[in-house]
């Protein structure tokens, strides 16, 4: 992997995030406005003082007008961007590059998704227009292929693996219960999780992320200007994006126990950020727990656990709020909800709160000053992966 990165050249100086929930009474415009205003306000800026905008949404609008119209922006550059579940993160990445390039001094990245106007259960994405031969697989079914493959490869009995997956959901609900912005704000007994109605394969309803509406936004400035806006900026250490060749479904060598895209992405990000041991160096990680087996496999792909041993770490509580490396302290996609385009920036929002000591009951106090966000868009064998690393000090 050969990216030079932009370590410490830009900083986050303001963020905003709406509650993630079924916003029956709020439109995409409302959500965009609320997240934008919160972010700009926290940086002490008005829209007139922001030079450029990147809006990420999977399916809740097209073009920069999706942002400029509700905000009534006067002739600013606004790009609309889509990269599946990495959409919001990629909006952030592009905004960072724009500032790092010197083209702009300030930029906003915002992600939004309005899923609950569709009238259906679960997630539905566009599609159509093809030759009708693509496999009609629901998202949980795609990811349910991971658990039997993992169990088989590492000799974990399937009931035991079910316990592991249940504990991941239980942990994320427990974290989400402490988060006033989360979609689901109560703990769920393991028994309820384990016995929830099956959706696909071994996955029950409680193994799936919440389907929600929401928006989140970040203000990015040149690192050297950061303290003009806030006493506690976050410096961007690494930004990595990988799109795989999508051969998993046609490659007999692919065994559904890893996301090679994430492995490549992590190598790149850690190199950019100068991280040698993520498990020991990161203060927290926000990862893409779209389904419980995804989080399990990610622990290994991101280098948080040894290959084939993440399940033991999960059972031992290594990734709990008080564990060696807290993962998804805000509740994750599981209980915070997953409005596709907004999720990447929502993860960053938790890093913003945690590293600045503003996470209240969820506050992690392990003395580390780096945080990681990770998104995965697509399915096992065919996905895009995004990783960012942010920190409180400029090296």
């Amino acid at each position, binding site marked *: 992997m050969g990216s030079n990165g932009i370590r410490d050249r830009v900083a986050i100086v303001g963020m905003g995030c709406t509650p993630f929930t079924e916003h029956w009474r709020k439109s995409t415009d409302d959500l965009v406005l609320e997240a934008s205003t919160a972010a700009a306000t926290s940086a002490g800026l008005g829209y007139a003082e922001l030079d450029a905008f990147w809006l990420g949404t999977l399916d809740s609008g097209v073009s920069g007008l999706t942002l400029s119209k509700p905000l009534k922006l006067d002739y600013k550059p606004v790009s609309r961007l889509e990269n599946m579940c990495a959409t919001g993160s990629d909006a952030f990445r592009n905004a960072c590059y724009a500032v790092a390039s010197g083209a702009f001094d300030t930029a906003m990245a915002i992600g939004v998704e309005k899923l609950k106007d569709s009238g259906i259960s679960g997630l539905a994405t566009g599609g159509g227009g*093809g030759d009708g031969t693509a496999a*009609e*697989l629901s998202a949980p079914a795609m990811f*349910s*292929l991971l658990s039997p493959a993992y169990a088989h490869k590492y000799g974990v009995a399937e009931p035991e693996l079910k316990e592991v997956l249940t504990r991941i959901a239980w942990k994320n609900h427990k974290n989400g219960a402490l988060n006033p912005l989360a979609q689901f704000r109560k703990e769920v007994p393991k028994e309820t999780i384990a016995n929830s109605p099956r*959706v*696909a394969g071994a996955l029950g309803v409680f193994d799936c992320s919440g389907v929600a509406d929401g928006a989140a936004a970040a203000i990015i400035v040149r690192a050297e200007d950061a303290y003009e806006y806030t006493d506690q900026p976050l410096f961007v250490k690494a930004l990595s994006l990988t799109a795989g060749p999508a051969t998993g*479904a*046609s490659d007999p060598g692919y065994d559904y126990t890893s996301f090679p895209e994430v492995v490549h992405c992590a190598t790149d990000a850690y190199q950019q950020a100068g991280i040698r041991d993520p498990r020991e160096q990161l203060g927290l990680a926000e990862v893409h727990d779209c389904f419980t087996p995804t989080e399990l496999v990610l622990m290994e792909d991101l280098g948080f656990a040894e290959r084939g041993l993440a399940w033991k770490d999960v059972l031992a509580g290594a990734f709990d709020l008080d564990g060696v490396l807290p993962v998804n302290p805000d509740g994750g996609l599981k209980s915070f909800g997953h409005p596709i385009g907004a999720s990447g920036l929502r993860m960053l929002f938790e890093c913003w709160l945690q590293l600045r000591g503003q996470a209240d009951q969820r506050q992690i106090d392990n003395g580390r000053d780096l945080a990681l966000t990770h998104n995965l868009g697509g399915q096992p064998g065919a996905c895009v992966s995004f990783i960012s690393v942010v920190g409180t000090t400029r090296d």
Partner: protein
Amino acid sequence: MAGITCYGTYIPRWRLARSAIGEALGVPTRGGTRAVASYDEDTTSLGVEAARHALVGVAAPDTLVFATSAPAYQDKTNATAIHAALSLPTSVAAYDMVGSSRSAVGALAGALDGCRDDRSTLVVLSDVRTGLAGGADESDGGDGAAALGCGASGVLADFVAKASATSELLDRWREPGGQTSRVWEERFGESVYVPLAVEAASEACKQADVDIGEIAHIVVVGPHARSNRAAAKALGVHPKIIIDDLGSSIGNTGCAHLGVLLADALDRAEPHDHILVVSIGDGADAMLFTATDLLPDYRKDRPAVRLAARPSGKLPVDYANFLTWRGMLRREPPRRPDPPRPAAPPAHRNERWKFGFQGSGCVACGTRHLPPTRVCQSCAAADEMEPVPFADVQATITTFTVDRLAYSMNPPAVVVVIDFDGGGRFQCELTDVDVTEVRIGDRVEMTFRRLFTADGVHNYFWKARPVAARTEGAD
């Protein structure tokens, strides 16, 4: 001399016990079962399966003719989808003869008459038959297909004579777009059909200078069951030479039944045996065949072609699902988006993939791709691909999942990841399966199906299904 050069049949695996109808409706019913096309099958897909059986080891025909009383499309030719699924060359013509059950005998007779200059025709007969709940058509109908090759070389049964007796009468009818038939009082049809059947049969025998007593196998077929039985009796032959109508296990498969029963006769015939086919419906037609010396070897080489050797492991379908599959019972759909209709240009561009199930193989390194790609996923060679047919290659299940959320006419959907013998991985739906019985390592074969219909567009593609043991024995 022209005659039958190859044959194959396809009976869906699903069976409805007639007693289930009686139990649901509180009416008396006959015993036995009827064959039921799965929710993802129609007359076109059934026809493809029968034609695949018939064409094993046989050269492509010059013409394909498709006959059914239940075409998937009007205006649009259905035979072209069968043509595409068989990966036939574009120079092969494909025509429909759709509408009445008499289309079947007409298609076969026309094909045999057209065998001049060594030209050959594959006649595909297919039907999905049902009726209103509790009626005879529902109970006694069946679903299935047969394919018969007609040509002048490699003939298994010479076509020696044909006679027709045509008459206009209102016996069975259905308005365009209607799903079920209406019939006149059965005794009326019998009074007209039986003399016409005897007339046609006698005339065919006379033309060939064969005495009816010399005939080894007689097929009497048509939608009018009472007339079939009465005509068989009126021919004055020993009952044991009448080919069983398979009514107790499969049911009357409409247009396909002529081919299904003729195939059964060909399965049994010895060289020089005469086979008389009497088809009754809007008149009567009689065709006389004589088995040739090639027939036993043909059968020996193709154990799978024999009707009696069709896969075992039949699957029971309950009455509610039967009604749902045929569109007779409207069920609450899932709260999921309807699948989008397939678009015409990509379906046409990808005809060899979508219909023919041809992947690509890298000439440089041998890696096989499904769907076909231009750039090799192993060695990145670009445009170094050759087509690889996968339709007749078996595969092994590498992993699978049961999807309870995805849209399906028959939830839950079973999705499998399969590795083909000789290389090539693919992810697709598994059909004709009991969801509790799927295991990693199971063997599967490919089958042509109608995945769904959206905006009146039938989405045809391939699915995997378990390879069932083939056992000798009555269907």
